[in-house]
C-alpha cells in the first residue's frame, strides 16, 4: 500500500482533532511507566516507554464487560452497542494480538458478537518500534518491531516526519489529503526497521515447535520448567492474546447484570468440575497448558501461534519464569529425550 507523510505538528493536530470528535485512547504516564488512558489532547500522550504495561486487548475484550442486563422480571436484555474509539500508539506486537483475538473469537461459525462489534468500532493507529526492550522477541515469532498486522494505520517516526501506512479503509480515511511519501522516506523507514530488528537476536524454529510440543506433553521436563510457578496468573492477565473469561452475575445499585471477566488457566479452580474432579490439579499441568496453548493449540484452532513476543509475562512473573527459556529448552531437548 501507498505510504504518506505527516509532520510532527500535523500529527499533533490530527490527534487533538480526534480527541475532540471521538474517544481517543493512548499510552499515558503513570507511576511505573505507561498505561492506557483516555486523552483530551496530544500533550497527555506518553510514548517514552517501549510499551504499555497492560496490553491493548481490553479495547476489544475488556477486563470486565456487561454481557446482559436483566429487567425487573428477569428478562435478559442486550447492553447498548459500544461507542466509536480510536486507539493511538499501539505497538506491532499488540496489534498482531488484536488480529489473533479477532480471528479466534470469530472462527468456525460461532462468533462472539461483543468482540466483533468492538473491533468494528475501533480504529488502531499503531506506532512502529524504533527501540526495543531486552524482553522483546516479536521477531522470533514472525513479527517485527515494524510489522503492520492488525493495524488500521501504521506510523513510523522518522524524526521530524512520520511515515503513515494505511492498512484498512478506516486508516485511509484518517490519512486522506496528506502528501505521499517519497523514496528517500521509504528508505529511511526501511533502515529503522532493520536497525530495530537487529536488536532482537533470538530466533525460534516455529515449524519444529509444532512437532516438538505434542511429543513433549507427557515429559517430566515440565516439572523443572514450572518449578517456581506460584500460579498467580499475572502472565495471563498481562498477555495480549490470552482470551479466557469467566461469566458471573452481579447486582450493582439494585440492577442485575451478567458480566464476563478475564480468567486464567493458571488458577486451580479454572478447570475444576462441580463434582470436585479437576483435570489440571497440579501447577505443572497448568503451566504446560499455557505454553501449549500459545505455541500449539491455537495453531490447531486458528492457524497461528498466539504468542506475539511482547515479553510482558517475562517482566511480570514474580518467579522469574521466562517463556523464551521454556521454548528454547523444549526445542533443545526434543525429540532426543
Amino acid at each position, binding site marked *: 500500500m501507498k505510504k504518506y507523510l505527516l509532520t510532527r505538528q500535523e500529527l499533533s493536530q490530527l490527534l487533538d482533532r480526534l480527541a475532540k470528535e471521538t474517544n481517543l485512547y493512548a499510552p499515558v504516564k503513570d507511576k511505573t511507566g505507561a498505561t492506557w488512558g483516555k486523552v483530551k489532547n496530544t500533550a497527555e500522550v506518553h510514548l517514552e516507554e517501549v510499551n504499555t504495561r497492560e496490553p491493548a486487548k481490553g479495547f476489544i475484550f475488556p477486563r470486565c464487560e456487561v*454481557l*446482559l442486563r*436483566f429487567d425487573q*422480571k*428477569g*428478562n*435478559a436484555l*442486550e447492553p447498548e452497542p459500544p461507542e466509536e474509539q480510536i486507539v493511538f500508539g499501539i505497538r506491532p506486537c499488540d496489534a498482531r494480538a488484536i488480529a489473533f483475538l479477532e480471528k*479466534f*473469537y470469530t*472462527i*468456525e461459525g*460461532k*462468533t*462472539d*458478537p*461483543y468482540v466483533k*462489534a468492538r473491533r468494528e468500532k475501533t480504529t488502531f493507529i499503531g506506532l512502529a518500534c524504533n527501540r526495543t526492550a531486552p524482553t522483546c522477541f516479536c521477531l522470533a515469532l514472525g513479527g517485527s518491531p515494524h510489522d503492520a498486522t492488525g493495524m488500521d494505520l501504521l506510523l513510523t517516526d522518522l524524526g521530524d516526519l512520520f511515515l503513515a501506512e494505511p492498512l484498512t479503509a478506516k486508516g485511509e480515511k484518517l490519512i486522506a489529503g496528506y502528501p505521499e511519501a517519497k523514496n528517500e522516506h521509504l528508505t529511511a523507514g526501511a533502515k529503522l526497521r532493520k536497525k530495530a530488528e537487529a536488536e532482537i537476536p533470538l530466533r525460534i524454529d516455529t515449524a519444529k515447535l509444532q512437532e516438538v510440543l505434542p511429543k513433549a*506433553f*507427557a515429559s517430566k521436563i515440565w516439572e523443572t520448567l514450572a518449578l517456581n510457578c506460584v500460579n498467580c496468573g499475572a502472565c495471563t492477565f498481562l498477555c495480549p492474546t490470552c*482470551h*479466557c*473469561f*469467566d*461469566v*458471573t*452475575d452481579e*447486582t450493582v445499585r439494585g440492577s*442485575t447484570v*451478567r458480566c*464476563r471477566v478475564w*480468567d486464567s*488457566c493458571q488458577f486451580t479452580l*479454572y*478447570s*475444576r*468440575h*462441580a*463434582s470436585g*474432579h479437576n*483435570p*489440571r490439579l497440579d501447577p505443572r*499441568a497448568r503451566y504446560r*497448558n499455557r505454553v*501449549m*496453548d500459545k505455541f*500449539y*493449540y*491455537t495453531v*490447531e*484452532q486458528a492457524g497461528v501461534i498466539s504468542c506475539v513476543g511482547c515479553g510482558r509475562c517475562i517482566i511480570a512473573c514474580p518467579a522469574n519464569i521466562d517463556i523464551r527459556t521454556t521454548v528454547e529448552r523444549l526445542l533443545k531437548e526434543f525429540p532426543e529425550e
Partner: protein
Amino acid sequence: MNNPYLPLPMRIERVVIENDARDLKTFDLAFVNDSDRKGFQFLPGQFAFLSIAGVGEAPFGIASAPHEPLIKFTVKRVGVFTTALHELEPGAIIGMRGPWGNFYPLELMTGRDVVIVSGGFSFTTLRATIAHLLLPENRQNFGKITAIYGARSPGELLYKDEIRQWEKSPDLQLVLCVDRLNGADWPKREGLVPNVLKEVAPPAANAIALVCGPPIMIKYTHPVLKDLGFKPDQIFLSLENRMKCGIGKCGHCNIGPKYVCKDGPVFSYSQLLNLPPEY
C-alpha cells in the same frame, strides 16, 4: 444481533423429584415464545445452559428427545446455581441458551446394535437417546438396543415411570443395577456398572457403545468394552469439563487443542486416545 449469550425465556411446567436423597430434580421446560421453539433444534447428546437472573448459569445435558414437546433437564443440587434452580416451582421463568455441542453418532449407529452404558445421574442424555431410538419411525434403523444403567442405590435411579415402561419394551434390553443394596429389597442386580457390563457381555460385532458417567466410571468401563471386542472407534463417550461459554471462546473446557463444548461433549474413544488426558 445473533447473540449466543442471550438466554431464551422458558417456563417451568413440571418439577419431578427423582431420588430418595431429593437432590436430583427433573425440570420440564416450555418455550415462552413460539418462535423460539421453532428455532431450537437439537439431537440427543447436546447440552444447553440454564440461566437465572442474578444467580448465573450452568450447562446441562438435554434429557428430552427431539420429538418430546417439553425440554427436560435433570439437575443435581451441588452448588450455587443448582440450589437456586432446585428452589423454583412450576410457573417460574428461567433462561436457556443452546443447544451447544455435538451429539451421539446417530448416522454411524444406523444399521448397528447400540450398547448404552451409564452410571449415576449422567444418564440424562442417554435417556434422550433411548427415547429417540425407541420411536416407531426410528426403530427399524437400529439393531438390538442394550442399556446398562447403574445407580448407587435403588432410590437413586432416575426416570422411574419410564424405566417401568422400557422394561416391558421388546425393543430394548434394559439392565438395571445398584452399587450396593444395604439390605434394601431389590430384585435386580447388585454390582458396579463395569462388572455388570462384563456379565451382560453384549456382542461387539457391528455395535456402537455409548458411555456416559463420571470420569472414574469411564476409566473402568473402557477395559471391559475392550475385552468384549469393542474397538476405540466403536466407543463414544460424553464428557463434562467445566464450561462458561459453550461456544469455544472462554477457554475453560479444553482437552489439548479441542474444546469439549464445541468439538464434544461426545468423543469417540479413538479421538480421546489422540488427546491429552485432561478430563
